[in-house]
């Protein structure tokens, strides 16, 4: 958390947050599948003011060869922020934060992709944050799993997530940028919706056990709502494809 001591009040007397949401309300979310021509699969997500694209290439060959895993595919996710996606221009190229997020996202996606079906290959997932507004790792991961489905990569289930957090001593859902900067804790969560098992789970800030328990529940419940949006996006894509086929 930014951890800056300020007098900024993030929740008003009516329990409303600065963007008017209640404590357990998601920001507006829009997901679109299959928006790129070249990628094997792709998705675009708007989540609050986040604008993120994910693309998938693979399974494809791995170079150099000694990086290949003879027993399964390697899933490599790359989380990247566009130079203009944040307030102060970000120098292109991976920084330490991007490298950590790429790792936790790779881990989360690997938990559902049937990697054993494609030994010696790589499945590459690219997440480009075009505009950042808190919660980019979860939004990117959510888009990435739609892109994997769009690419036809076999998976046990989608991955979906949402963050909870703590603001003005209250546990709330889905922090926006100001809440992330001036709040007390951030708790990003991602799950396999079918089993509700956790595949990504991080926390930083200051929370009691009970607060985490509550935040975790809120995040999981919200994830299930986002899951519906993922499925709708994929459905829309296939209906459109089917219609195009009919028209031909």
């Amino acid at each position: 958390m930014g951890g800056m001591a300020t007098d900024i009040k993030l929740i008003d007397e009516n329990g409303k947050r600065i963007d008017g949401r209640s404590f357990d309300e998601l920001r507006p979310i829009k997901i679109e599948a299959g928006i790129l021509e070249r990628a094997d699969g792709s998705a675009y997500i708007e989540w609050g003011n986040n604008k993120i694209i994910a693309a998938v290439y693979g399974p494809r060959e791995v170079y150099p060869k000694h990086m290949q895993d003879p027993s399964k595919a390697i899933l490599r996710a790359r989380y990247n922020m566009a130079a203009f996606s944040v307030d102060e221009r970000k120098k292109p190229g991976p920084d330490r934060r991007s490298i950590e997020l790429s790792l936790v996202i790779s881990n989360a996606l690997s938990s559902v992709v049937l990697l054993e079906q494609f030994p010696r290959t790589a499945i590459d997932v690219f997440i480009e944050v075009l505009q950042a507004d808190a919660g980019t790792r979860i939004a990117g991961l959510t888009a990435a799993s739609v892109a994997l489905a769009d690419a036809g990569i076999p998976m046990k289930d989608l991955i979906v997530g949402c963050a909870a957090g703590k603001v003005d001593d209250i546990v709330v859902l889905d922090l926006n940028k100001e809440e992330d900067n001036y709040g007390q804790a951030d708790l990003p969560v991602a799950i396999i919706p079918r089993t509700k098992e956790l595949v990504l789970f991080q926390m930083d800030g200051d929370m009691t056990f009970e607060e985490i328990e509550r935040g975790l529940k809120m995040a999981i419940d919200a994830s299930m709502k986002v899951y519906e949006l993922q499925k709708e996006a994929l459905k829309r894509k296939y209906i459109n494809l089917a219609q195009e086929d009919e028209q031909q």
Partner: protein
Amino acid sequence: MSKFTDNVISEIKRDYIQKLLSQGSRIDGRGQYEFRKIEIIKNFIPRADGSALVRLGNTQVLVGVKIETGEPFPDTPNTGVLSTNAELVPLASPTFEAGPPGEEAIELARVVDRGIRESKAIDLEKLVIKEGELVWIVFVDIHVLDYDGNLFDASALGSIVALKNSIVPAQRFGQGENFPLPVRHYPATTTFVKIGDRIVLDPNLDEENIAHSRITITTNEEGKINAIQKGLEGTFTREEVLETIKMSIESGKYLRNTFILGDDQK
């Protein structure tokens, strides 16, 4: 030189495209000097100081402008600074790789930069806060999202549209009121490739993959030429080059009137 040579095109397709061209047709039905469908969404990234998403057929390029304070170059103490960068992120093509910009990304950035710089599109002299000490630095970042050929024209178009709509964020830096970035010229960039002995405008990826030579020309609203870059391993005759320059002045007018100065943007 990519490991994933998906850009390789089949013999059959190559022959087909060439045969069509020799009959005066293109694979997607366009005329020789016809652009693909162009769509521009300006200010797509409100967090940036200027931005434009350009769709040129299936090619998609997002250009973002960020403006910050910094020191001028010692040899130009009384002008602002323009810095153009291109990222061919691996999301956009199986042939792009992560890592620092390769020679293709650098060529792209430098050709776009030349078009803006040599046309004196930005009035850099109006971007001085304190001579020799503090000036505005204009970062143009080209983020390629989907690569279906002709990144030059899509990127150059996105750059000038983003710049034209950019606001200098003076308030953010405690330098008074925000003001529009002073843009006074409108360079337009057009690219041609030669396939066999035929020359076409705005190649798509299939055409690019079998092209022998490429030429990218930037012209301004007075019909003058500000930048040329011949690319690839093939040749052009003098007559061909002069013909493409002439056509570029024409096609540049179309781009400028319709997409840069016109209202055909979302």
